[in-house]
Every structure is written in C-alpha cells, then in structure tokens.
C-alpha cells in the first residue's frame, strides 16, 4: 500500500509540469493536433522545417517555447484553411528572413553553395581524365 502511495506521488510529480506546459499557451492549436490526419501530417512536415525563434537550434515541432506554440497554431490553422505549406513558409520568410526556415532555397545569395560542389566534381573529373590518359600513353 505504501508503495502504491509512493508510486502515485511520483506519477503526480511527473504529471504536474506537463499540465503547466499545456497551460502555457493560449494559442488554440499549440498543443492540439488537427482532426484531419492528412492535414496534420502536412502541418507536422512543415513544422519540422521551421526554426523556433526563441530556442534557435530547435524546430517549432520540438520546442516548448511560447512563441513556438504560436507558430504551430498558425501553421495548423492555415493548413486547415487549405493553404499550401510552401505559402506559409513564404509568409514567415517574408517577416523573419531565410533564417526561420531550415529548408535551403536557391537565391541570388546562396546559389554558389549549390553550384560549387558541382563545379568541383567537374574539375576533379577533368583532372582525373587527364591523369588516366597520361598513364595509358
């Protein structure tokens, strides 16, 4: 009986912080999934590629920061309203810059990141071809 009592206490100790976390957000869909499973999957996929503005190493899907709750709610409500995930990402990038998104885009600033590896592979191929030719000769 005593053991059961201790177990109940331990359970309560774990349950209380959880309840406090739930009470943290006044945004409707911060901790509530969408009823439509397909839409929730779409929202989840987008949330995993958006940066929490407060705990900046985390995605908003992982973070318990209050603003991440607001961002999740925003994403879910807009998906439920039929908006495309990339349009929502664009809306956030318009306000916070590319930093808010974990999915890299090809822009006037970032294209060398995508072009350079291809250029290096081409250069390596060119050099190797010359070397093999010389070996045959």
């Amino acid at each position: 009986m005593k053991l059961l009592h201790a177990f109940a206490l331990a359970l309560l100790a774990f349950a209380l912080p959880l309840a406090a976390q739930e009470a943290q957000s006044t945004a409707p869909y911060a901790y509530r999934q969408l009823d439509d499973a397909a839409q929730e999957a779409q929202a989840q996929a987008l949330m995993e590629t958006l940066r929490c503005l407060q705990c900046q190493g985390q995605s908003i899907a992982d973070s318990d920061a209050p603003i991440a709750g607001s961002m999740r709610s925003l994403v879910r409500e807009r998906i439920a309203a039929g908006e495309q995930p990339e349009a929502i990402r664009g809306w956030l990038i318009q306000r916070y810059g590319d930093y808010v998104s974990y999915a890299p885009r090809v822009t006037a600033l970032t294209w060398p990141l995508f072009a350079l590896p291809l250029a290096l592979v081409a250069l390596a191929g060119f050099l190797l071809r010359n070397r093999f030719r010389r070996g045959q000769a």
Partner: protein
Amino acid sequence: MSAPETTRPAAPRWAIWLPLALFLMFVVLVLVGLFRPADREVASTLIDQPLPQFALPAPLPGTPPAASADFAGGEPKLLNIFASWCLPCKAEAPQLGQLAAAGVTIEGISVRDTPEALKAFLGQNGNPYKRIGADDSGKVQLSLGSSGVPETYVIDGRGRIRYQHIGEIRPEHVPMLLDKLKAAR
C-alpha cells in the same frame, strides 16, 4: 617508366607550403567564428513597410482595443509588444512610463496573456498604454515579424514601421527612441 616524370613541370619550392597555409586559414576562420559574440536576435524584415493589418479585442473591460487603423493618425507612435509573464517587460515599465509622460502615444499588444494576470501586471507596474490589444494566439506578433517579448516598434504617422527595438527599453534607450519618433515625423 621515368619518362612521364621528367615531362611534368617542376612545382615551385614554395608550393609545398600551400596546403599548410590553406589549413591555417581555415583554423583562423573557425577561431573567429568561435570567439565572436553570438548574435541571436532575429530582426523583423518589415522595416519601412506598412504595418500589417490587425484589429485585436481589448483584454480588459475598461481599456480600449488596439488596431492597426489607430496608427494612421499622422502622429508617430510606439507599438509595444509585451506580456505579464515576461520579466524584462517589468524591467522596461518605468521607461515606458517615462516615454508616456513625455507625450508619446504607446499602443500595446499583450501576447498570450490572461486578463487576470494582465490586470495584476498593470496594477503593479503602471499602465502607459493608450490602447491594448489581446493577442492570445500570438498571430499578430508573428505577422509583425516579432520574435519575442518585449519588442517596441516605432510607427510613423502614415502607418509604416520605421524601427524595431528588440528586448527591453533601458534608461539609455529612451532618448534614442524619442529621436526615432522625431525622425518618423
């Protein structure tokens, strides 16, 4: 066998140091990045853009609600984003009071707050706000490109965002904000 080696032009003597030099350059780059103080502020990209449209309900019965239409009056105003649960907001309250006493109109947006907590917060720290909007979902905060509380925007008389102050307003920021308001005229 030795024929190909003789046809290859000899590299200059200094070329042997090239890989080491490249490596050292890389080390310097890493060290600079490692010891430079981190900049964790995410600034809004809406500077010099029109204030996004919003019309928020009043969080308390007695206070008038805040809306973006209130900023079209021709006079520059401050838009303060705050919350009763945010400690730096408490720290900036005297400075907001000072600005309000200097004749600045301050509109407030309380983010993810409850009426009871907000009432207690305003009772304790004073109410410098002309109007307050309750942004329970945080949607208006996100539409403004605000990444936390407190933040203060300088909005000019035509309803355009002119400046974003991230973090609490310390005493040394008051003259700077007054200057920004004057420049927004």
